[in-house]
């Protein structure tokens, strides 16, 4: 028996609606015509899709594991997430993929659903192709060498060709490792002032250019990970105008923060690619609005506290993002950088298209993957309030506007939080 439930008076893109769910599907999204929003209604959004996280299991469970990562994802409004292959051992064979999927199914049978990304090269060593067919059969939805850039353009070509036949996207972490060997921060005034080794912006954009030219020449798709620099955006814009089959992502932290955050040598702001300049932020904001950059991802990179409590240059790269992504993006909506419609495109419909997942467009029969967001419920991510084992985010102990109240996947609650005064 499919139970029919009504989620009354929620706001869908500015309009008060009743959302009617039947079993695991959307039955109807019915506008409530006569009323205006009181400002107190919860905001309805489709379940978010994060195609770039690091869940650290197997091998580095002191940073995060599949259970804690999926718990954080549930609290952050995600119904589907991908996890990168740089685990220990590397996810370059079906045994590791299956282990990830079995662990996820055992600890979170209702979701968020986990979609592993397989390694592009064996052991991420950048020398030989990984067993891509085997990985795809086992359930990998993309291939990437994320974390270890592929400097060999010949191998990159072969990987893109081989995976194109499998119709599985390749995600490239764009970085020329020879241009950024020891870099820890954007190369610029800040790196010079702080006396830290810089990463030049071209370290990213040269690799972006290479990938775009490969995709153009080979006529096969490529997806560019965590784009963070203006030149990269301009190159992608050029390629898309030419019809090159490219898609790209960036992260909330590149839309919000600049190298200025690093002024106090705060290792929580150390991330790869490093935070850019105000001009990069301007370019990226425009790019996500206009669709030059297709999707948002967290690049959730949890680390243990002790690992980040070390001098800046020694600290590992990465920002923990699953708990806070939606709240951070809401601050962009409040600042008129993004609209709610943009959020749906950047976090749901486009990622679903690129990676072949099902999203919820609130049409009858769509999967009932949705979240309720309370813009009035300000909260502060702290060691206690964050679900991820990694508390490494620049917004730790900073107040954020709005928070997830309910996250449902296939009609079942993954996470819910209803304070007393609201009942």
């Amino acid at each position, binding site marked *: 028996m499919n139970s029919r439930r009504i989620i009354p008076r929620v706001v869908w893109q500015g309009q008060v609606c009743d959302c009617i769910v039947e079993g695991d599907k959307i039955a109807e999204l019915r506008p409530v015509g006569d009323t205006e929003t009181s400002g107190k209604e919860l905001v309805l959004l489709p379940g978010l899709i994060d195609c770039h996280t690091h869940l650290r299991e197997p091998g580095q469970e002191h940073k995060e594991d599949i259970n804690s990562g999926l718990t954080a994802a549930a609290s952050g409004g995600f119904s589907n997430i991908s996890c990168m292959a740089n685990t220990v051992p590397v996810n370059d064979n079906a045994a590791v993929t299956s282990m990830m999927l079995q662990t996820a199914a055992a600890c979170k049978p209702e979701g968020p659903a986990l979609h592993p990304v397989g390694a592009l090269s064996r052991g991420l060593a950048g020398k*030989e*192709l*990984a*067993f*891509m*067919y085997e990985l795809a059969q086992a359930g990998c939805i993309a291939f990437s060498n994320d974390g270890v850039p592929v400097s060999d353009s010949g191998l990159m070509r072969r990987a893109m060709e*081989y995976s194109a036949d499998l119709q599985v996207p390749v995600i490239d972490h764009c970085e020329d490792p020879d241009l950024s060997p020891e870099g820890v921060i954007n190369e610029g005034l800040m790196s010079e002032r702080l006396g830290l080794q810089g990463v030049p912006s071209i370290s990213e954009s040269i690799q972006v250019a290479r990938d775009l030219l490969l995709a153009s020449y080979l006529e096969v798709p490529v997806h560019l990970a965590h784009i963070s620099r203006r030149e990269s955006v301009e190159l992608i814009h050029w390629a898309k105008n030419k019809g090159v089959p490219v898609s790209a992502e960036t992260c909330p932290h590149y839309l919000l923060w600049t190298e200025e955050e690093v002024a106090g040598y705060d290792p929580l702001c150390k991330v790869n690619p490093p935070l850019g300049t105000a001009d990069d932020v301007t370019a990226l904001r425009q790019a996500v609005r206009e669709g030059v950059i297709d999707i948002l991802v967290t690049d959730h990179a949890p680390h243990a506290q002790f690992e980040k409590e070390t001098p800046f240059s020694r600290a590992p790269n990465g920002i923990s993002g699953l708990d806070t992504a939606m709240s951070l993006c809401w601050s962009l909506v409040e600042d008129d950088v993004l609209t709610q419609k943009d959020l749906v495109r950047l976090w749901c419909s486009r990622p679903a298209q690129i990676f072949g997942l099902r999203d919820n467009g609130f049409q009858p029969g769509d999967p009932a993957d949705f979240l309720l967001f309370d813009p009035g419920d300000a909260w502060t991510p702290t060691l206690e309030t964050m679900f991820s084992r990694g508390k490494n985010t620049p917004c730790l102990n900073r107040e954020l506007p709005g928070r997830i109240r309910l996250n449902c996947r296939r009609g079942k609650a993954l996470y819910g939080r209803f304070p007393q005064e609201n009942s």
Partner: protein
Amino acid sequence: MEWTHKDLLSVTQLTSAEILDIFHLAQNFEEIGTRPIKKTPTLKGKSVLLFFAEPSTRTKTSFDIAAKRLSADTFSLATSGSSLEKGEDLRDTGLTLQAMQPDAIVIRHSQSGSADFLAQQLQCSVINAGDGWHAHPTQALLDGFSLYKLWGEFRGRTLLLLGDIAHSRVARSDIALFTKLGASVRLCGPRTLLPRYIADWPVKVYSDLEEACRGVDAVQCLRLQLERQQAGLLPSLREYATRFGLRSKHMELARPGAKIMHPGPMNRGIEIDSDLADSPESLILDQVSSGIAIRMTLLYLFLTSISRRSE
């Protein structure tokens, strides 16, 4: 039949009528192989130089037998310990060989274009027995002959070439020959083993083997050179075998009675299932005997046209 060619460098130089004439003649020559005394005096006093600068067992032996059945004398150049290994260039080797006055030189060489190069330098006939990735015309002719004996007509027939197309002289020659004869040619292999501009070739390309096999009349499996994996073109031989190894489930999708071919040497269990290679539908051994008939025909055409020309 009027034979005007000095050399055989590639299938592309032949007309479809010439190819069919070769097949007709080859049927007569094939009969010689079934006699108790497998020798005719047709080419008595002619000499054929077998210049194989790349390892070869079956092609070299096949030419050798073909020449000897027609009573021609054959001379082989050893590759190891030869002047080639000492770094002599191809032109000097060729001129030296010509000075020994053979009527034809059969050349196998790892460099594409080497047969053409030698043919330009020499007055005697040059028969290409495989040059690099470029051409292997006698292989394509024997493949065609094997099927001609069964089919008679190529129009309406579909041949699938399976495996490493990019680095295969057999594939290039087969495509040229079968399309010339009016058959449809399909290719199947990972994109990393297909030429980049394959879309411009007169073939249909498949990345899924089951789709590729649907309704075909014959499948020619190509040998996977094991070094392709080391060159980064394949994840592993196992994965190649899983995706592109021909098995009976694929042949069940082909037209009933579809034939299985392989130019050899086979990697059993990689590009072809072992049982399939030995099955009644396998033409693999017939390809070998067809090869002798085709090479007898070619030697006959080249060596008798020379004497006709000199008369």
